[in-house]
């Protein structure tokens, strides 16, 4: 379509423009409406007049003026912008464009992201708000992605906005400590969003790739703002590397294909190159963090052209590092997969024994336990564990995968399948 380029330019400008409008109006709804109005006008005028020199600056100026007009009409008292900014849009646009790369601008976008990813919001609201405000997805699209009704999603977003207004995020330039705190909160939400797409927590589809793609887009945005932050490089690398396997993770019928059975020729080589370059770059800083370590693990998988070439000893060491950085039974469980490859199923089983209690309701715990027991030839107990996993499956694909393992267990009592549920 002829207006495709307008849509692309608007999508690219969106986070910067909404962030600037938020600073000016200090209210999410006003900023959003101002941006919408500017988009409408862009669709009217750009196809006719051609693209403005700086689309972002244009959208900010036009959105700002439209919102001021609107506030004026509604008789609100607000400080008006300097007259020359209103009268000569072109000059103001140039002036604004020159300021776009300043540090202020970076703080604007981080503030917008932080407002959406505010730690006082429950995770589901953070994600919904970020997708609505920063990514510009429609409420209907977000509702579909989360398998809830549109009205319910609308309500979730409205509730989130109300809480944000009450939380009163300050608009002054943040201190270095505050900036680091905001960056960490935003990174955490992007990570959640990615995981929600990578391994859906419910519903019929096992993967929700649009959520992964949005998460990658947001991670890249954050990396653009903070190009020298190793953890942001790590987060981006992690998302990109995991997503690179997307088309090999499910078979034609939507069934799960384990990592070691995947057709590696179907992995996205370009995405892998990007992820590897980013993680290599991050590690040069010698400031390790959880995202970098997880990305480094994904990188070791990505570097293995055959499953048999996987550096399991390296992966085991990285999981041990991750356990130290962020102790969690789920990470120990993942380390156990590597341990089973390096030291055998008995060692891995011993490692996960103490996890039985904290992971009593965790699908992958029973999936791995069953696989390890099966490798040890303990088929009766393996069957019990597979049945527990089956009861805990989140998606039909997970359930089907376990059923397949159970079938195999019945037919071929000695088959040694790989450990765990790594996809």
């Amino acid at each position, binding site marked *: 379509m002829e207006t495709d380029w307008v849509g692309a330019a608007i999508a690219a400008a969106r986070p910067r423009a909404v962030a600037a409008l938020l600073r000016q109006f200090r209210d999410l709804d006003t900023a959003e409406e101002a941006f919408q109005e500017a988009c409408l006008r862009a669709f009217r005028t750009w196809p006719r007049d051609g693209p403005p020199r700086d689309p972002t600056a244009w959208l900010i100026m036009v959105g700002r003026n439209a919102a001021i007009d609107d506030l004026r009409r509604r008789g609100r008292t607000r400080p008006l912008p300097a007259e020359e900014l209103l009268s000569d849009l072109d000059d103001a646009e140039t002036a604004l464009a020159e300021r776009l790369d300043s540090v202020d601008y970076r703080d604007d976008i981080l503030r917008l992201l932080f407002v959406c990813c505010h730690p006082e919001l429950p995770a589901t609201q953070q994600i919904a708000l970020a997708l609505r405000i920063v990514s510009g997805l429609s409420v209907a699209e977000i509702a579909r992605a989360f398998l809830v009704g549109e009205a319910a999603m609308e309500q979730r977003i409205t509730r989130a906005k109300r809480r944000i207004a009450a939380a009163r995020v300050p608009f002054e330039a943040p201190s270095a400590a505050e900036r680091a705190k905001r960056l960490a909160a935003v990174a955490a939400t992007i990570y959640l969003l990615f995981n929600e797409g990578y391994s859906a927590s419910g519903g019929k589809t096992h993967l929700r790739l649009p959520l992964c793609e949005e998460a990658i887009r947001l991670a890249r945005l954050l990396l653009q703002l903070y190009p020298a932050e190793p953890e942001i490089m790590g987060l981006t690398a992690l998302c990109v590397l995991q997503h690179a396997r997307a088309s090999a993770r499910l078979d034609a019928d939507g069934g799960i294909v384990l990592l070691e059975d995947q057709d590696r020729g179907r992995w996205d080589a*370009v995405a892998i190159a*990007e992820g590897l370059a*980013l993680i290599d*770059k991050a590690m*040069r800083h010698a400031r390790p963090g959880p995202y970098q370590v997880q990305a480094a693990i994904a990188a070791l998988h990505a570097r293995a052209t055959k499953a048999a070439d996987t550096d399991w000893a390296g992966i085991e060491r990285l999981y041990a590092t991750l356990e130290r950085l962020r102790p969690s039974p789920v990470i120990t469980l993942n380390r156990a997969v590597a341990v089973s490859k390096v030291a055998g199923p008995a060692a891995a089983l011993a490692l996960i024994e103490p996890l039985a209690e904290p992971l009593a309701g965790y699908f992958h715990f029973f999936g791995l336990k069953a696989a390890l027991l099966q490798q040890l030839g303990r088929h009766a107990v393996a069957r019990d564990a597979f049945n527990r996993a089956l009861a805990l499956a989140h998606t039909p694909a997970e359930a089907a995968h376990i059923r397949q393992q159970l079938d195999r267990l019945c037919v071929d009592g000695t088959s040694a399948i790989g450990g765990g549920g790594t996809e």
Partner: protein
Amino acid sequence: MLFAILCYDSEAVVGTMSEEEDAALIGRLEAVQKKLAAEGRLGPVARLLPTSTAVTIRKGREAMVIDGPFAETKEQLLGFFIVDCKTLEQAIETAKELARASGAAGAYELRPLATFRSGGALQ
């Protein structure tokens, strides 16, 4: 005479294109490349990964490695090498070796490639 044609565009805009849009764009460019190749006029073609993956090595007595792409407007692009490296670390070492050999000022910007075709038509 040989010419290099360097591509410039907004990374933010290209980055928001969907896979289909991107594939369509590449398809249109490939049609032109095919014609050039048939005429024996096409040399190497490469697409670079995003600038977020870039590292810059500033030449000097002790080469300095900086995150990010080259951003000096007072220096101009004079040429490029394409080298095969296992890791970014090896690429940096290679660039440093070139830096030592050149002895001149300036910088090398390292940009991993997304795609590469050697295009054997030119000698």
